[in-house]
């Protein structure tokens, strides 16, 4: 074709031909306005809930904000909670790009924590970096293999990935209980059966002079890596192609099963790293505290962030702040700790509802007709 560039543009966009400039920023704006609007609506609904319960909604919001982001000390607490959320969110976000809904975050976290504990105890006399390196590797492999089972079951046998990953959560928690009550049990842990502890000097240290441990670094690094991997590599393109149309991907000759299982492994490895962080930086040992709900909250983060690596960092920090403010609501407003759960549920419901609004507003179209 020997047409000029101008002619091509004219063919591509009638709006330009009609003399109006195309508006490429409007679709991008839609992706910001709708989630932010949804969060605002959820805040309003939660405010209404507080009002009905006889509390001053604005005072509650102010308290949450103060407890989550009000001071450097509070923000550190938020970041400590955000770190495992970033990692567990990836366990749902990565397979979501394949078109799979995997909810095995909690199980992969528990298996990662268990593997990290066993490996860390085995090499506890080695230097700090070796202990941490071995624990991280073991945690990632433990969690990764756990979710690779889900991928293998799906691609080899057609087993529903959501149900399989859900079942594996319960199996992982049962394994954890079995091991910390039996083979791994430290006889001195009476009230809360636990494994033998990782020596204090071999724990994951804090960053500089803050209270925030290096788990935050792992979380941010993992989200950035996931972002690059999924959006800017051929691997990510292949994965997104499978998610878009699995038959087309097969016809194009992609090794669908292999790519799928690798993605599930990476997803589990991220959640397994969260388990390692919880053991190596927070609990110091494996016990039932590992299954504290970071896995299920991670599913929420992944969906709210629409399964993208960079927004996960932001959403996990916000949710970390909300989780960190549970105590102050209890002390200052006599609101039960479940208030935070109600709030999370409201945010999740409104965000899901907002997904159905994409494309509904003419304003966000690139060109008007």
């Amino acid at each position, binding site marked *: 074709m020997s047409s000029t560039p101008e002619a091509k543009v004219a063919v591509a966009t009638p709006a330009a031909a009609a003399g109006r400039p195309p508006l490429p920023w409007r679709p991008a704006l839609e992706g910001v306005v709708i989630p932010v609007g949804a969060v605002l609506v959820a805040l309003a609904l939660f405010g209404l809930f507080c009002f009905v319960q006889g509390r001053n909604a604005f005072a509650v919001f102010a308290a949450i904000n103060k407890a989550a982001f009000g001071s450097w000390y509070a923000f550190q607490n938020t970041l400590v909670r955000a770190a495992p959320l970033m990692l567990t969110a990836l366990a749902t976000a990565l397979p979501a790009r394949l078109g799979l809904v995997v909810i095995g975050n909690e199980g992969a976290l528990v298996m990662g924590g268990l593997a990290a504990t066993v490996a860390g105890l085995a090499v506890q006399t080695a230097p700090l970096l070796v202990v941490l390196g071995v624990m991280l590797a073991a945690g990632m492999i433990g969690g990764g293999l756990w979710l690779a089972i889900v991928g293998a*079951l799906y691609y080899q046998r057609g087993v529903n990935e959501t149900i399989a990953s859900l079942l594996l959560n319960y199996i992982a928690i049962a394994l954890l209980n079995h091991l910390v009550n039996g083979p791994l049990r430290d006889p001195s842990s009476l009230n809360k059966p636990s494994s033998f502890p990782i020596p204090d000097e071999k724990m994951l240290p804090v960053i500089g002079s803050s209270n925030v441990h290096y788990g935050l670094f792992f979380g941010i690094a993992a989200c950035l890596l996931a972002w690059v991997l999924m959006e800017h590599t051929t691997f990510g393109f292949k994965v997104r192609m499978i998610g878009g149309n699995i038959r087309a991907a097969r016809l194009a000759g992609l090794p669908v099963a292999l790519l799928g299982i690798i993605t599930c492994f990476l997803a589990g490895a991220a959640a397994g790293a969260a388990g390692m962080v919880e053991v190596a930086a927070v609990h110091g040992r494996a016990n039932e505290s590992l299954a504290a709900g970071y896995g299920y909250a991670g599913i929420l983060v992944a969906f709210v962030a629409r399964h993208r690596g960079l927004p996960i960092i932001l959403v996990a920090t916000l949710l970390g702040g909300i989780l960190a403010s549970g105590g102050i609501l209890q002390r200052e407003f006599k609101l039960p700790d479940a208030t935070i759960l109600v709030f999370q549920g409201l945010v999740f419901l409104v965000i899901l509802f907002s997904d159905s609004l994409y494309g509904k507003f003419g304003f966000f179209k690139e060109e008007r007709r």
Partner: protein
Amino acid sequence: MGGWGVVVGVLSGAVRGGTPFLLVSLGECLTEKSGKINLGLEGVLLMGAMSAYACAYKTGSPWVGVVAAALAGAILGAIHALLISRPRVNDIAAGIAMLIFGSGCAFYFGKPFIQPSAPQLPGIPLGGWSDVPQIQAALKISPLFIFGVAMAFVLQWFFRGTRWGMQVRAVGDSPAAARALGISVPRTRFFAIVLGSALGGIGGAHLSLFYPGAWTEAISSGQGLMAVALVIFARWNPVHCLWASLLFGGAQAVGPSLQAVGISTGYYLWNASPYVLTLLVMLFTCSTKRTLAGAPGALGASS
């Protein structure tokens, strides 16, 4: 009692522990027959348990509690149904949101009811023929179990022998064909999900008003989520849901029963046995070539 004690323990556990499984799985079965999954039944179960306990405590009648549980379940089901009738809303994600929201509401409103004790549902004593107290205790059946068994057969008849049942199956198997027949897909799904959630709520009433018979935040051990797996195990057949629920309830009772006679090895592993069992069944019966026999055709599709 010895060995027999274990058998009696497992059997009574199958009936007592199986009842919530039964009611929740029947609710899930009805929901899935219409072509959608409701993972939020765990939240429904907790909300049902809490409302049943609270209303039984306030009014003094456990039966009012059962009705309240069904209503609470229906309300949560209605939210789920309205949400997933929207375009591009994933039913599994919505289920997890409802799970968080439902359990949050249950814990929030249930806080004041953890201490007081509410009137319990009367057990139906079927063990009068035996002198052994353990057997008498084991055969004290929950009225909700009887209700569940009846519902299993009613639902079986509903799907096979009634016009409405056919409509639900048509919507679940092929929404396009159902639409062509003039059946409203969203409305059918709405009713299936709301009624299914009401059944799930009644399952919660069994937890707080019969066995274990108190409201605590740890009252459900994932029966609501397990129901989804159980329905697959039962191949979307209500009567098979009954057998599968008894099996799951019994499997959960194996660990405690063995512990009662002094065998505590593998106590926690026994707890996982229903999950392992379901996974194995899915592993051996699923195939990438075809869908499961009995699975509603539209299940998992985005329409």
